[in-house]
């Protein structure tokens, strides 16, 4: 019986092994990059949200709610009669600039012509 030697399975070619390693390395690098970007986006979003929340919170807590200021009133509907209008004339005022009018400046009236 001849002693035929059984050769061990041929080891993968060094080049093939390098390609797999390279691919795995690239995949891991890709995952790391994805995780980094994801963490950055979440972090920035959280910081932006908290900052905006704090700004609005401080603004409201300090008693400077813009919705309550004289300058900006929401669009409103007023059902009026002719007599009501005269009573409302002095009360219904809003400002586009937030400054008091000068008593030295005459009021002007805009009307249909």
């Amino acid at each position, binding site marked *: 019986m001849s002693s035929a030697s059984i050769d061990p399975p041929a080891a993968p070619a060094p080049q093939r092994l390098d390609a797999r390693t390279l691919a795995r390395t690239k995949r891991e690098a890709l995952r790391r990059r994805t995780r980094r970007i994801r963490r950055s986006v979440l972090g920035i979003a959280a910081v932006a949200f908290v900052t905006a929340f704090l700004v609005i919170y401080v603004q409201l807590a*300090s008693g*400077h709610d*813009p919705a309550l*200021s004289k*300058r*900006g*009133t*929401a*669009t*409103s*509907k*007023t*059902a*009026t*009669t*002719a007599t009501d*209008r*005269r009573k*409302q*004339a002095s009360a*219904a*005022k*809003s*400002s*586009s*600039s*937030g*400054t*008091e*009018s*000068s*008593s*030295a*400046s*005459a*009021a*002007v*009236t*805009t*009307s*249909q*012509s």
Partner: protein
Amino acid sequence: MSTDAAVMTADAGVVSAKSPAVRASAGGEVSASWPCFGSTSSAHVSGPSGERSAQEAVQLVGSSLARWHEQFSRFEPRSELSRLNGDPREEVQVSPLMARLAQAVSDAGAMTGGLVDATLIDEIERAGYSGDLARPLPLADALALAPARSPAAAARARRWPALDVDVERALVRRPPGVKLDSGGLAKGLFADVLAQTLAGHGAVAVNCAGDVAIAGTRKVAREVNVESPFDGSTLHTFHVRRGGAATSGIGRRSWLDVQGSPAHHLLDPATGRPAFTGIVQATALAPSALLAEIRAKAAVLSGPRAAAAWLADGGVIVLDDGSHHVVAPPAAVTLEDLAAYAAGARAARRHAPAR
């Protein structure tokens, strides 16, 4: 001030004998008013500029308005506007201000998609508005007789895109037959031109038949009252430091046409007939009086659902039933506001009790 009154009367030509002419307030503001453009115009100026005194500024407004009243009237056959409208040439040399009006007509059409169309002269004359209205129809009667309300729309065959204006050379090109209506656009333009001319004075307000332009170096906040079309009461008061305000509506110029139907001067470009949209008046604030005039007209014509969208800088809408909506100006935070806020916060911290 009687001397000034005499000067004004002689210069302006449109001031009646009963006109209050020039008057000065206790605060030093000089004011005058004149009947023109079928209504009343006024000017309020305080403080001198480098070129003229406040009184001279007011007189300049009066004389300018009188000149423009003659120049831009479509009821005067010899006015520049009538001559332009009747000119058979395609290209016409006009005055610089007429060129600006033509440009404004073109801009108004472009900005509103044809809703504000100041080329509907033939249509408005067919509706019966071919001269000064002797006795206008009361608004309540016009509304009672008016057809069903519906928003206006742009005309299918638009004329305004054919306008080609060279403002620098004062040339107007258009197909002969395309006519311009001075209407409200001219009033807004005049108010802007005058306010710009007088901007070197401390505080300036020019009210050109309801179209108001406000300017001045002191940036004083001035009260602008919005008048009710029903009874003349004040519906709302805005405070404006710079810019324009204008009111447009169907309350003042209504009449019965030959068929006995109510008519007015705000036409639906799509039909060529007076528009009854459910809005009787709109007031707009804007950076200029001309822009405010365009917005106010567009608001009236677009009807109650879409009107507020035209009032980006604030305004008032009055509906058929007499109710009104106030569209508040956007809240503006200036550097002065921020500085005042910071100073207040610092003071509050200083005076806060120690913990």
